[in-house]
């Protein structure tokens, strides 16, 4: 007996649309932004800020995702170093007014909100209150040279997890005063994890080592926990510790802890509506440019 499956023309159109949209929907994408060059023509900041290792650590982060891609476990990796890391790619369209650029954070293969996972290595600073924000130094002076969590960022498209190797990018007091909540995420956003630093964090070849260790260890789980394990450094309690932190947004403490401990590149666990956040840190960590955490 032979059966013939017949599709109505409208159904064909739906199938074609689904097939066409599938790669965009399903792509697991990583962007890395290593901003090492400062003070030159078209660059931000001054030459004293130039640290070549910033692009090396970005390369280390990207390298593991390239390996996962090779093994069919990831889809795309983009590297946007130095002048390619522009303020516009960290600015939401709705926040263009406060930026000397057009917000373009969803730009395909460039914008930070076009990726599922981003890694940024640059310089940073913070303001604890009125307003509370962290700021990241960008690589191209034709756009904003500082991307601020309050004035530029709003993660409401594809971004799930951000890993930020920059001083003061996850300050406790900024978080306490609401600096990383509604400022840069919506309750409906997919964005849910900001791995960063409270206070200043050291820079050197050792960062490339621990970024490699972190990214390789977090394939299945520990996507927040491994960040703290890898990046923490106690420098004899002399007010210069490296204090990695993780800020997780979600509907409940349990959902947020689950992502911190059990989420990994292969399972970026959802945390529901972003109505609250959890700050993960080491008690007693004491950095420069930040309070001792109790």
């Amino acid at each position, binding site marked *: 007996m032979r059966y013939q499956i017949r599709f109505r023309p409208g159904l064909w159109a739906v199938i074609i649309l689904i097939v066409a949209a599938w790669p965009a929907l399903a792509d697991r994408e990583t962007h890395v932004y290593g901003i090492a060059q400062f003070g030159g023509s078209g660059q931000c900041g001054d*030459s*004293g*800020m*130039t*640290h070549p290792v910033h692009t090396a650590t970005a390369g280390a982060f990207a390298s593991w995702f390239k*390996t*996962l891609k090779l*093994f069919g*476990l990831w889809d795309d990796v983009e590297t946007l170093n130095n002048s390619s890391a522009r303020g516009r790619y960290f600015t939401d369209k709705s926040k263009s007014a406060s930026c000397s650029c057009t917000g373009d954070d969803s730009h395909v293969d460039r914008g930070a909100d076009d990726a599922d996972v981003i890694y940024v290595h640059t*310089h940073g*600073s913070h303001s604890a209150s009125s307003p509370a924000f962290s700021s990241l130094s960008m690589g191209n002076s034709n756009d904003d040279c500082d991307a601020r969590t309050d004035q530029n960022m709003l993660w409401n498209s594809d971004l799930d997890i951000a890993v930020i190797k920059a*001083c003061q990018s996850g300050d406790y007091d900024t*978080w*306490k005063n*609401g600096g990383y*909540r509604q400022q840069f995420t919506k309750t409906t956003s997919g964005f849910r994890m900001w791995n960063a630093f409270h206070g*200043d*964090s*050291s*820079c*050197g*070849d*050792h960062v490339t*080592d*621990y970024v*490699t*260790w972190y990214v*390789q*260890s977090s*394939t*299945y*789980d*520990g996507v927040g*926990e*491994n960040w*703290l*394990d*890898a990046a*923490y450094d*106690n420098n004899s309690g002399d007010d*210069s510790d490296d204090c990695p932190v993780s800020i997780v947004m979600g509907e409940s*403490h349990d959902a947020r*802890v*689950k992502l911190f*401990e*059990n989420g990994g590149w292969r399972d970026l666990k959802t945390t529901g509506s972003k*109505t*609250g*956040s*959890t*700050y*993960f*840190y*080491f*008690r*007693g960590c004491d950095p*420069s*440019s930040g309070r001792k*955490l*109790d």
Partner: protein
Amino acid sequence: MRTMKTIALSLLVLASAGLARAQGFQFDTSRLATVPKAELPRERMSLRAFEAAPTLRAIGAQEKVEKSERLSRSRVAEFIGSWRVERDPLEGSLLIASTREMVSSGGETDEMKLRAMSIDLLNRIGVPQSELGRIQVRSLMTTDAEGKEEPTRPQLLTYKTFVTREINGIPVEGHRAVVSHAPSGELHRANLRWPALASTGHKLTTRLSVQQITERASEVLKREGEREGKVLLRWKYVPMKQSSGEVALVLAVGARIQPKPGMEPREITVPVDAQ
């Protein structure tokens, strides 16, 4: 009067001991006082530690490997009962993770006990006592903010025991183990970056004087765009990876520059003609 002068002079000499100035930099060389010896400890981490059997024995797993997944050319994940073990001999990485959800309530565990349990686990995996350096136990805390409410009182989530790898008392750059225990003391996770040591090819000492190292540090810092500031110099071993995954250690000096406001504190590696 003469006694006063002598005391003042002595204090000046004491204060300047271990400090050296060179072209805008003020070097603290106190940690270079003893030159590392050119010997490896007899017991060393070997590639055998990255085989499946020792790891399973270390966590007391009786079950067989149920599922295995290859994540890269050299990294394999194996699922055994309520554990997942990731082994990578080429990277020198070993990750043991409980797949059970951790219970974060359940009292507290004494720090000495956590240290002892962590060292015991590392020894059973194959990390020799002679490679264990600084051991620190830290409490990983959480605090929550719902909506615009004030943050909640911090809660203990897990204990972390950090173990630095040291050879002859000198830290090996990038090598450490972190053992995680639930508040009840139950093992939750162990993450090691601790490659096997090669039997040959190490360069563990130097004939350069502190003065020569200081001059060299000054040159290297200038090349990196630094011009002035307080700099702490300390020994470190830089691992050089071999094709087998083993590493050979090369002595170097880490020059850590005191941070300037708003800048990352940098550590720059200074070669010391190790031999």
